[in-house]
């Protein structure tokens, strides 16, 4: 490992060193008149963005043990740091002054975790980076406000997160046992899963490993049935940090899932296909129906976050370069969507923060009634983000959904399950329509309903900037999505070195012949 190789990790080192500096700056807070923690954290992230830009796209550099710097790293650096800067803006004034240093440092550590997850090329490194994403979030929730509920949701999240980490580690150890290697790049050949090369099916050990890893990561991305914590945690944490919770663990979880799917060469048994299919369908439906009956906006957005996980799982199931047409890359669609989702979700929570009056947090629909009259610009920002979450033009959310479902529809007939995937996409489209109902309720409550308790909003400027950037970005990305989309597309290049698709590989070759590949019966 040379110094030259280390410079390739410039953004990561900047975040690491920056986080340490922020900790020190924060410790001196009591004696300072100006609070430096938030500005320093923002500068650190901006410097890391600059470093990302200067370094350019890495071309599959493996000179650092355990890491593999690919275009995926580059893409994830951009979206993580970009949205990370917005997260810092949203949290500018959030915790009390004495804790702000720790708070900002934790945000930086969590972002660092995401960046390293994108580069991880080793199962153990992957586990550590995922935990590096998660552990700071437990602290962040507890610090975010001085409230028993925040502490409660932090503890809940911590215990359940610890359990999911244990499940993930257990699964990774199974995979190591089956493959005999921890290097993700070579796990595939270790397993000889590429059935079309060796004809050997996936072993049960590897399969159990896969299932446990999927379960552990399903917790991170908040997929049903491992979503149970979401509403409580979102409700307990302060709004601005909730905006981050919807994006950072989800992104890390999906990157890890992509890596594991790629390690299996996107070739998994039929039963696993149906498992992901069912999880995706149930996640969308449960998320949307539960969101529909909420009166608390934060809980509503929490369940909507579950629903969006379901949409992203559709794209994951499609996989890279399956089918034909320009929208054929499901993984690119997923990466595109997650960036848009992160921005619009953060924007919605930033709007809730901006509406805050004094110390009273804005949470229920009654709290936001008629706010358009009091804060017209913030209301407009929230409306744009809500329309984007709904997937309406002219917002980027529309293009995100178009790409995700388009990737499913462009799956060619050669794919053994293309009908099932299209059916899943149709379920997704129906779910988007259901989702529109509760997002519209937020918008109509702001604009139409009379205000109950008029008062002047008392939030700071940075959170308004965050909201402004998020909502304007949603409009601009609608008009000009090609840059983000083509970056997402090139990020998947390293993930499909071989032509990829789900093969109906079964444990028993005879059993595979029994079932028609186009079978819709989810019992298999």
């Amino acid at each position, binding site marked *: 490992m040379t110094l030259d190789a280390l410079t390739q990790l410039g953004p990561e080192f900047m975040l690491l060193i920056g986080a340490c500096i922020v900790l020190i700056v924060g410790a001196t807070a009591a004696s300072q008149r100006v609070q430096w923690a938030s500005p320093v954290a923002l500068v650190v992230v901006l410097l890391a963005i600059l470093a990302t830009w200067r370094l350019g796209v890495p071309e599959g550099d493996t000179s650092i043990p355990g890491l593999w710097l690919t275009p995926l790293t580059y893409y994830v650096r951009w979206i993580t740091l970009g949205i990370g800067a917005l997260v810092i803006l949203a949290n500018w004034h959030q915790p009390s002054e004495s804790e702000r240093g720790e708070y900002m440092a934790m945000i930086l550590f969590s972002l660092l975790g995401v960046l390293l997850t994108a580069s991880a090329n080793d199962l153990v490194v992957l586990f550590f980076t995922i935990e590096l994403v998660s552990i700071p979030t437990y602290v962040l929730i507890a610090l975010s406000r001085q409230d028993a509920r925040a502490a409660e949701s932090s503890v809940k999240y911590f215990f359940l997160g610890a*359990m999911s980490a244990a499940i993930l580690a257990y699964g990774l150890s199974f995979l190591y046992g089956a493959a005999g290697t921890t290097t993700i790049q070579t796990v595939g050949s270790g397993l000889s899963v590429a059935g079309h090369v060796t004809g050997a099916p996936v072993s049960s050990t590897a*399969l159990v490993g896969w*299932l446990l890893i999927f379960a552990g990561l399903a917790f991170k991305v908040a997929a049903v049935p491992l979503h149970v914590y979401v509403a*409580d945690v979102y409700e307990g944490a302060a709004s601005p940090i909730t905006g981050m919770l919807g994006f950072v663990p989800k992104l890390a979880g999906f990157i890890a899932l992509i890596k594991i799917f790629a390690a299996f060469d996107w070739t998994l048994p039929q*039963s696993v296909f149906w*498992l992901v299919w069912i999880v995706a369908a149930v996640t969308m439906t449960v998320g949307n129906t539960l969101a529909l009956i909420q009166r608390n906006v934060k809980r509503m957005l929490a369940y909507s976050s579950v629903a969006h996980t379901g949409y992203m799982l559709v794209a994951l199931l499609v996989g890279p370069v399956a089918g034909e047409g320009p929208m054929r890359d499901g993984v690119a669609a997923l990466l595109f969507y997650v960036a848009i989702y992160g921005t619009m979700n953060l924007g919605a929570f930033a709007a809730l923060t901006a509406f805050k009056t004094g110390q009273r947090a804005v949470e229920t629909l009654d709290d936001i009634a008629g706010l358009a009259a009091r804060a017209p610009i913030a209301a407009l920002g929230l409306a744009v983000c809500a329309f984007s979450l709904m997937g309406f033009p002219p917002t980027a959310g529309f293009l995100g959904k178009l790409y995700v479902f388009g990737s499913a529809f462009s799956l060619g007939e050669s794919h053994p399950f293309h009908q099932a995937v299209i059916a899943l996409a149709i379920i997704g489209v129906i779910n988007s329509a259901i989702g529109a109902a509760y997002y519209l309720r937020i918008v109509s409550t702001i604009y139409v309903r009379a205000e109950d308790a008029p008062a002047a909003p008392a939030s700071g400027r940075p959170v308004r900037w965050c909201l402004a950037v998020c909502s304007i970005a949603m409009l601009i990305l609608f008009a000009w999505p090609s840059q983000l989309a083509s970056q997402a597309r090139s990020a998947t290049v390293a993930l499909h070195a071989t032509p990829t698709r789900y093969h109906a590989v079964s444990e028993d070759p005879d059993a595979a012949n029994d079932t028609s590949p186009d079978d819709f019966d989810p019992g298999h």
Partner: protein
Amino acid sequence: MTPETLDTLKLCGIVILLAPLAGAILAGALGPRLLRSHAHWPAILGVGAAFAGAVVIFTQMRGVTEGATTALLPVYDWISIGTNSIFRVEFLIDPLTSVMLLTVTGVSLLVVIYSRDYMREHDHPERGYERFFAFLALFVFSMCALVLGGNFLLLYLGWEAVGLCSYLLIGFYYGRPAAAAAAKKAFLVNRVGDFGFGLGIFLIYLTFGTLEYGAVFELVQQGLTGTGQALSDGRITTIALLLLCGACGKSAQLPLHVWLPDAMEGPSPVSALIHAATMVTAGVYMIARCGAIFTASATAMTVVAVIGSVTALFAATIALTQTDMKRILAYSTISQLGYMVLGVGVYAADSAVFHLFTHAFFKALLFLGAGSVMHAMGGIIDVRQFGGLKRILPWTFRTFVIGSLALAGFPLLSGFFSKDEIIHHALQAHPILGIMGLVTALLTAFYTFRMVFLAFAGPERIPEGVHAHESGKWMLAPLFVLSIGAIGAGYLGVAGKPFHTFLAPVFEHTFTAANPAAHGAAHGAAEAAHPSFWAHYGLMILSGALSIIGIAAAYVLYVQQNWIPGLVKATFPRVHKMFHNKYFVDEIYDAGLVSPARNAGRVCVGLDDYLIDGLVWLATAIPRAFGYLVRTFQSGLLQGYGLSMVAGIAVVVVWVLWA
């Protein structure tokens, strides 16, 4: 065209789009706090820049002497992944685009300038001043996008965006129930048209596999679909009729005309710009642009011509009995749009666009003049409540008369030439439709001057408590400019016909080539070269005479012998009632469509309240019951979550391994 020309054109296109957009954003964002009573400046400058861009495009297009006069300019790939571009933002610039851009940005600029004074009360900006200018500039952006777009997707986006701006501006005084209802009506009626339009575009995509104008039109002319199969007559007729459905909505043609008169609830500059000069002509523009599609189906062309002529006559009869100046003008707009649609329907697209061009001047002039009257009368616009304003509003009166003469087709003013051409072509194609056009011309002259005489002639009558005064210079200046246009614009279509020559390349392969009347004329080429005096000028003299007769009749009936209208009304009460109530179309729609829909809505609300809520309660009862069940087994929530997670994973592992 040289590469430099293309670059200039592209740059101008971008300026035309971005300048008004920037103006809209600035007026909206800085208006409330910073600019306040200066919020009109971003809009004026933005639209002014767009107008400058349109002028440059026009001069560039005029300078093209050889080669193609059509430029397709890709701006950027909108949705592209890898090297595949799905949809592109691209401009199509040809003489038609150029003329439309000039008309749109020119009238817009004048209207924005006019609005500076109109939207003030005693030099204090009205409530929502900056909102008004932001929407107006946004409208200019949308309309230019509609005109500039090089594919059907951009056309559709622009189409919807102008509809949105129209909705926002009709409902500008949203505190007034009538304005809110009118905005809703415009929105819903347009939705009907746009639904057909959207289906048409979808069908184009399904049939040809592309939405780019050039590619689609070429395939249509070759009679092929996107996959190389033969294009059936039924398919192309369906596409054309669906597109026509959109045109009927946007251009207020029968049977979707009902929204336009109500749209007069918006401020007068909006009526002048959106509901007279520009947006409502989008339908005519679209048919002219899609000439290849329409001319491929003789059936569709006949339908277009019939709808146009019937609408023209129908709306003119309604205008005879209305008393609200703006509504009279609205029906006359519908009628004139009918002429334009008739024009394209009889293969005279260049004449239709010419009428569109002249109409933009004189109708905008009339609406702005009516706005000036309304401003002076403190918001009252019913001609029964005032009269004899000639001396109080001298300049408004003079310009208004010029506009009225042009609208009435008085000889040698702009409306005379353009209308005459359309009637000429209509007579050649379908004599009945031509005669309907002539009758409409007579009625037009009559109702226009009925309005003029009622408002301006006779003894002075003004509503009580109104301090009537002539408008200020910001309002009068646009009136003067438009008057010059109303007088002179028509001369571009005579004496060598520079206007038609300029447009000729656009319609060369569509309307001109497909015109059956032209084929007939080719046989009599010798005769055509030396037409007799009557063949050449007969129609002109006839329509000029009709116009003068109409004006004279209005003078006799409303100035000299003003007891006659009352007598006529008493003699034919049914006819009057039918005209006055607009043939009861609103009532028919209300009884036939709106009420049933509303009742269905009530039923749905009832279902929602009892059935759906009950179902939702049931649906949530199951998880709730499950929750209680789980809770009884668990001492705390957290363990419950953990246990359910582990149990779920265990079930899944067992299922996958042993399934």
